């Protein structure tokens, strides 16, 4: 049997490029270039590593505006067989509840056996979307995954999970949602051939909320949470004193712990 592996990838503002607007003193996210959420590159690697050992088809999906297409191209360049852009104005204002519903519905439509996600994003970083996908579909889930052992003969996926200090090996029945621990599964480089194809010839499949039959279950109205306000966090005031030699540092240290 061929496994269908669906990978969730999200476009986020490049954390390294988010600057402070000199006029307002506020964060200037609008001008930061958009990139693939870095942990999602690890999710792609995990999915492709399953395909290295199991007969599988890997499909990247993103829910976002059409300008998020480059993250799908990047996924295809890395080795994904196909990609879906789920885009609709109706998604505006979605919190993790409808976001995970949308991805769950797309994964189901694609006939996913395994869904692979990143640990969390670098923008809103809730980490709630992967368990949300599993919950909407009533599927098994494996989060904080450091290693994967596919068991196609048993229709199960075994994972090594990080349990904050230790680890555990858990077997889950298919279909299963995996969230990869960020830092594991070093992403492979895109092959030149694949890259040219992704950039020049590849077109993602496009789905709207109505295509998935969820047009009344997405967006602001069904989102239980809302952002009530945002404040920039003032950096903690530190002395920032760089001393010249170790003896001086030792005496500073002695004062602190006196």
């Amino acid at each position: 049997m061929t496994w269908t592996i669906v990978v969730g990838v999200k476009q986020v503002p490049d954390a390294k490029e988010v600057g402070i607007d000199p006029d307002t003193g506020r964060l200037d996210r609008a001008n930061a270039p958009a990139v693939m959420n870095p942990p999602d590159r690890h999710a792609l690697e995990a999915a492709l590593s399953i395909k290295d050992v199991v007969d599988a088809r890997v499909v990247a999906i993103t829910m976002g505006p059409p300008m998020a297409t480059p993250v799908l191209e990047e996924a295809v360049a890395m080795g994904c067989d196909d990609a879906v852009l789920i885009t609709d104005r109706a998604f505006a204002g979605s919190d993790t509840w409808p976001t995970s519903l949308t991805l769950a519905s797309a994964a189901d439509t694609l006939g996913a056996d395994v869904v692979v996600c990143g640990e969390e994003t670098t923008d809103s970083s809730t980490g709630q979307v992967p368990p949300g996908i599993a919950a909407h579909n009533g599927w098994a889930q494996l989060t904080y995954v450091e290693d994967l052992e596919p068991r196609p003969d048993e229709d199960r996926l075994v994972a090594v999970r990080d349990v904050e200090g230790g680890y555990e090996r858990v077997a889950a029945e298919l279909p299963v949602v995996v969230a990869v621990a960020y830092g594991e599964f070093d992403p492979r480089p895109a092959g030149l051939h694949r890259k040219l194809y992704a950039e020049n010839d590849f077109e993602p499949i496009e789905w709207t909320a109505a295509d998935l039959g969820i047009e009344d279950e997405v967006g602001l109205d069904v989102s239980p949470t809302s952002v009530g306000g945002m404040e920039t966090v003032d950096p903690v005031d530190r002395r920032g004193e760089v001393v010249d030699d170790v003896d001086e540092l030792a005496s500073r240290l002695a004062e602190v712990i006196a």
Partner: protein
Amino acid sequence: ADDAGGIDLEAYADVWVFVEVHDGDVMAVSWELLEEGKKLTAKTGEDLVALVIGEDLDAVVREALERGADRVLVADDPVFEPYRADPYGAQFRAMVEERKPSIVLIGGTHTGRDFAGRVAVPTHAGLTADVTEIDVDDDGLLQARRPAFGGDILATILCEEHRPQMATVRPGVFEPGEPDLDGDFATVDEAITAVDVVVDESETISEVLERNVGDTTDITEADRIVAVGAGIEGDLEPAIDLAEALGAELVASRAAVDEGWVDGSRQVGQTGKTVRPELYVALGISGAIQHVEGMNKSGTVIAINTDPNAPIFEHADYGIVGDFADVCPRLAKSLRERDLAEVMP
């Protein structure tokens, strides 16, 4: 399927705190939340309810009462040990649907963040992630504040038209209270409810094959900390030496944890723990925002780094540009000489 916006908010009451137990050991964040929960119920006048799920829980149930829970709900069954997302999610969900809490607080540990969604999704509850500040307004509306964009922003998340208002809360942010060991728990039996266990082993969709809990040190209580990063390149000796001279706990950046040099229970930052020691000494740590977020409430911060432009110097009170392997032994030696000088007349 879901009656979004149409629920009867009045039907929901009480503040629930999830007590996370693995093999009899309670995660420290549970008691932090119970203490914080007291502040919420003091304002709302509701009950503070501890939820205990696991196996052989009598001692934990007792401790929850000693630590101030008005009531305890217990689901005690072998199906819950060791932890798995599907039985925990199903049990917790059933309890929420039957008893309708207004607020549910869950520690933002790997376990809490794993199953919280399996409760929030089917009950259509609002779930705020990684909260670092909580309050409640006069109408019982939870004001949950959480860092976003790597900690540059503090967002207030509200859940106005759905219940329960759920939140996972970052470990180490709040102080645990002291248990009241002499309290009068004569009414104890009335305060404890053994709930129906709705999960059966035959319906589970996952199986734990092997579990190694490893190092479960609670770094959040340490007064002094020595932190190592990728810059130590696996050479822990000088860091341990300095930690010993200081009587400090050893912690690490995510990069050092990912390398396997230090256990994950000792990771500080956005996806690790929040610490606030009097002294934080950072060795070979660049000062990425996701790291700084977990340590910037420390008293005094000292940075040792070979790169004069490392951002960590902006987050430090004192710093030195140098090789940690060179600086640590000299600092440790000077500390030991000082200790010696103190005991000598």
